[in-house]
């Protein structure tokens, strides 16, 4: 007979929290796996009562949504955790934030509200800001215009299975160029899909169409994620939980 773990099964999930967090500064060089390990250890240090999967190799219930690439910073990463004891979301957010390295910060922590749907369904687009040190706005603007005028721009993307050609154009729903403190900045809204088009791919496309070659490595920051609506606005994915929770608190107040 197969051996069973001794003792009772782990306590069930009684509450789900959705967390928006940022990776900044030096920790933009952390990979998704690095961040996952860091978050799990920080949750333990913060003594958050995580729910665990059953079996001989119990794992804390955490699901990560599409992670920003290694080397890119982000102000809008999302994850969902399952708790075995109900907690105040704000207190969990604060405790986790205190336990995380300085360059990883909890931006917001809300309770997942019943009937509001999954978090993954609320995210299909990224908003990027890419700093291009050493590139003049006068060079970026025409390159971007050329890129946007095309229907398809094929670039080679490095994948696990070698180089693969992808279209970097179709996923870019809008883009603009500005200048800040003498540095050209590329703002863009990019739909998430498979294969994913990342800032590096768009920059490779600018090289392909206009021979734009940044002298220094660009620095990308994901500023937001969410669902792109018909007006071109990216909706806050935690919005529905926040709205439902306010309503809920309102109901409590009347009791």
């Amino acid at each position, binding site marked *: *007979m197969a*051996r069973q773990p*001794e*003792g009772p099964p782990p306590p069930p999930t009684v509450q789900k929290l959705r967390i928006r967090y940022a990776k900044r500064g*030096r*920790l933009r*060089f*952390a*990979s998704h*796996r*690095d*961040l996952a*390990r*860091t978050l*799990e*250890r*920080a*949750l*333990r*240090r913060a*003594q958050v009562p995580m729910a*665990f999967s059953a079996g*001989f*190799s*119990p794992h*804390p219930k955490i699901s990560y949504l599409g992670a920003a690439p*290694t*080397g890119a910073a982000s102000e809008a990463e999302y994850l969902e955790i399952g708790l075995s004891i109900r907690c105040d979301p704000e207190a969990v957010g604060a405790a986790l934030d205190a*336990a995380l*390295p*300085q*360059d990883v910060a909890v931006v917001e922590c809300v309770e997942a509200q019943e009937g509001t749907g999954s978090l993954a369904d609320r995210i299909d687009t990224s908003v990027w800001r890419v700093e291009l040190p050493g590139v003049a706005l006068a060079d970026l603007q025409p390159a971007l215009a050329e890129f946007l005028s095309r229907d398809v721009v094929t670039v080679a993307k490095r994948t696990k299975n070698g180089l693969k050609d992808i279209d970097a154009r179709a996923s870019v729903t809008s883009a603009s160029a500005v200048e800040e403190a003498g540095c050209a900045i590329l703002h863009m809204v990019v739909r998430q899909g498979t294969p994913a088009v990342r800032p590096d791919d768009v920059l490779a496309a600018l090289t392909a169409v206009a021979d734009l070659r940044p002298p*220094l*490595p660009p620095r990308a920051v994901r500023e937001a994620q969410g669902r792109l609506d018909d007006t071109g606005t990216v909706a806050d994915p935690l919005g529905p939980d926040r709205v439902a929770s306010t309503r809920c608190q309102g109901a409590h107040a009347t009791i």
Partner: protein
Amino acid sequence: MTGETLYPRLEPLLAQIQKPIQYVGGELNSQVKPWDAAAVHWALMYPDAYEVGLPNQGLMILYEVLNERPDALAERTYAVWPDLAGLMRENGVPQFTVDGHRAVRDFDLLGVSFATELGYTNLLEALDLAGVPILAADRDDTHPVVVAGGHAAFNPEPVSDFVDCAVLGDGEQAVGDITDVVKAWKAQGRPGGREELLARLARVDGVYVPRFYAVSYGPDGAIAAVTRTRDDVPVKVGKRTVMDLDEWPYPKTPLVPLAESVHERMSVEIFRGCTRGCRFCQAGMITRPVRERTITGIGSMVEQGLKATGYEEVGLLSLSSADHSEIGQLAKELADRYEGTNTSLSLPSTRVDAFNVTLANELSRNGRRSGLTFAPEGGSERIRRVINKTVSKEDLVRTVTTAYANGWRQVKLYFMCGLPTETDEDVLEIADLAVEVIKAGREASGQRDIRCTVSIGGFVPKPHTPFQWAAQASAETIDHRLRVLRQAINADRRIGKSIGLRYHDGKPGVIEGLLSRGDRRVGRVIERVWREGGKFDGWSEHFSFDRWTAAAEAELTPLGVDLDWFTTRERTEQEILPWDHLDSGLDKEFLWDDWQEALNEEEVADCRWTPCYDCGVCPTMGTEIQIGPTGRSLIPLTVV
């Protein structure tokens, strides 16, 4: 201005390389002190990749011990992978510390911990990247003092051209003494320059300064004499020994990397030293006597460490953890404390003993029961008597079967081949043993999906052990024995498919042998290999046997010796060994007698439980065995 951060110059390079996270620092529990606040600056290096070096306990301990001193500052540096090293050279970015990203060249001392000799080329690479002359003789007052430590420092002769000094034994107190000397010398305006500083260091207990000892060679190639060149340095340098481990509860706040490392767990050293007397084991010989941490000391280190790190696994570390006098109680009480917290406890590989299965069951009560590792080391009962790790075949099979019966699916067995007096038959017994273990295990567990993994590597004779005189087996011998073993295991597929064989070919062991028992003449070989591009020798994809043999041929032949002379040649009792002036406390006569007894297949007992057999360590070093039981126990932690 020194101590400036190089990060702004490094950052653009990080965007272009693999796993940049390993170079950014900022690990939990790391620290960056203001440069000017400290009188003495230490860069501590583990000469291998970050993922291997970060979990190293020795380095972590010294990092914390030094940083606790208000007058000292310690930062860490690791071997840089070739992708970044190339960019650093192109862009003029020198070897840096991961904490403050300060140039290694700016530090007063560079401490390098050699757990294995295969890190030597990485030291040369780091010195060169740092802009520090690789030869100690070429350095001036402005360069860091390069200090070697770790087990390999018990024979630092092969790297004596590159290091300024070596510390023998435990480093906790030695680094403090060295800091004091450097601080005073700097405060006095650096009198006498580097030469005077090194002379002062040579008078610190446990510090060996190679330049103050001259080595001459006889016509047979062996050492004729080792003589002091100054009369104010010791004739023989003795090792340091930290007594009362409870007084040294380090690391108190272990480093937690963001990057993946080879040990994704926290470690607590439950005792230091080992007197089991396994004759191949350098660690067991040079770290005597046994000094236990008490059960309560261990309990509080586990508690503090988990709080400080958030790790989900704790390894109870030592050379033979099941030998702790309070281990049974410790396992039970720790498991009780952490019940229901998803915290797992583990022991490293243990001796073959049914009691150790009970222990492992207890420790895994709260977590996984995936794999268990035993280290019989020798394939036959005869060879196990030679190495003094006696266990009968019946006991071995019974122990492993018990493990399967208790729900362990996977048992790993560690062996060595190429041991003194070994024949093919000794190694072939490993196959018999594995087959029997699987048969008995299937029966006892009622499962067919149990597995036994045989992990085997070539034996490398080490200094300060009874086998220091032995002829090392050639790479061909090792490879032949591994081949016949593989064939024997695969002879019966119905059983063989449940047995995994993991092995390393014999070539790297030969080079490790050259570096382990080499003398100062081997330094030229190391330098040539590095100049020709050799580094990361512990990594099979970087190690080049041909480069090493060609360099050995070119550098050693003119001196009348060769690779075989250093490796496969048996030494005589009279020969002056390169490390004879470095004192681990073991009497050379005791070691020789033990070597003779090995050849006669005679066992020697453990002095913890039988009378002292005069290995020499305690009286020479003024130390004593420190073991329990203490009679104390771990009270449950207050529930959070």
